[in-house]
């Protein structure tokens, strides 16, 4: 294997190791939240340091790679993608830590009724599934899978949009559980961000495989709605 490929493989492997760790953090965060497991929550918080170490290490490896190999074309896109994926993984790691910090304060498991109403668990499942599929897309160089999973971000967004109303209603009915409900609301927001970050990662997979920039596409669509296209439509 040419030297440059060996080094790229090393980078990729390191990133996948970090990916596994962050996935484990997300899963553990969920367990800690659902079971009000304070010890597990503390472990997740502590382990975030490891995620940060990966972040620094991968940044450094990319810097070295740029300096030593002056990559071009697909190699250049690959390292650029790894750099951005790394940053997103680190943020997702922070989210898992944030969830664990919430779980650490729990005295009893979150009210099942509240979890049911907000759909936080299915949302968590979907975020985790997207995260896992994204790893597969990256590992197998599969932009098709990446494109498909980007669409699934809508599921998370939908749950997030409804959460304000649902939680408000719950708080009105259970005024003694307002702080718990607010904390859960912030977790829902965090999970929505995970969806966005996984989307960012998937966009990087598409960028490096197909040399296409797909991010911010929805912005363009929004600007160019059919209404605006109508002749004679002046603002």
């Amino acid at each position, binding site marked *: 294997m040419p030297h440059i490929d060996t080094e790229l493989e090393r980078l990729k492997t390191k990133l996948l190791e970090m990916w596994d760790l962050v996935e484990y953090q997300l899963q553990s965060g969920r367990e800690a939240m659902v079971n009000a497991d304070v010890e597990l929550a503390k472990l997740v918080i502590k382990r975030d340091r490891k995620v940060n170490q990966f972040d620094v290490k991968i940044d450094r490896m990319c810097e070295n790679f740029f*300096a030593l190999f002056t990559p071009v074309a697909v190699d250049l896109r690959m390292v650029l993608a790894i750099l951005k994926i790394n940053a997103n993984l680190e943020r997702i790691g922070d989210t898992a830590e944030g969830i664990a910090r919430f779980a650490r304060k729990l005295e009893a498991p979150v009210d099942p009724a509240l979890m049911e109403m907000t759909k936080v668990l299915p949302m968590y499942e979907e975020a985790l599934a997207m995260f896992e599929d994204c790893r597969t897309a990256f590992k197998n160089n599969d932009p098709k899978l990446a494109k498909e999973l980007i669409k699934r971000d809508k599921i998370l967004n939908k749950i997030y949009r409804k959460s304000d109303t649902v939680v408000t209603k719950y708080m009105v009915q259970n005024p003694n559980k307002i702080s718990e409900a607010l904390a859960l609301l912030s977790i829902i927001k965090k999970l929505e961000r995970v969806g966005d970050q996984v989307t960012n990662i998937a966009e990087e997979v598409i960028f490096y495989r197909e040399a296409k920039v797909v991010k911010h596409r929805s912005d363009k669509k929004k600007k160019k709605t059919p209404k605006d296209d109508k002749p004679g439509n002046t603002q």
Partner: protein
Amino acid sequence: MSKKTNKLEAINLDAYYGDFHALKNINIGMEEKAVTAFIGPSGCGKSTFLRTFNRMNDYIDGFKVEGQILLDGKDIYQKNIRVDELRKEVGMVFQKPNPFPKSIFENVVYGLKIQGIKKKSVLEEAAETSLKRAALWDEVKDKLHKSALALSGGQQQRLCIARALAISPSVLLMDEPASALDPISTAKVEELIYELKTDYTIVIVTHNMQQAGRVSDHTAFFYMGELVEFNKTKTMFTSPKDERTQNYITGRFG
């Protein structure tokens, strides 16, 4: 700098061409089975320094060295050192491919024949091993007795590397080995250097900074006869300590 043993070492080395002070108090150790690159602008002394390791400068009128060059801890400028023996240990590849006007086979076994080895089977085996090691075997195995001059530039350079390897040296000196080659041949030679370092200590002079980045473990930057900075290549290319190194590798120099 490292726990590994130094194969080559320069201690308080000064070199002169007549009155010209070409190398000024150089102290450096080169790790065994690693690639060390020498970089620096033309006339900085890097080639002169490279050539002290196999005493190639001895032939130049008025050339003089002071200080020590150690190969495996032994000073190669001592009077009792036989230069021909030294060069069996320290092979060299030059900027321009320089095959002899002979067959490919004769080129590779040239050094062995000079040593008096005549047995055909030994020579054949050595030729095959060396050509394989130089990643040229598959391309030339069916035309070993054709003229080496009919090969492409890149193939000729790999042939010269095979010729250097045939005498089983432990050190390979390379003076801009890829500067006369096209990008594909350059990539092949660089790949070869990377593979060869598992068995050889390699010192390479290069004008191509990216090449130093790709192939070497350590890099030394020379300027006006001085060794300005010597460090891991990674460090040299990401955070050099000396401003002159920084200016040179970023192309802002002089």
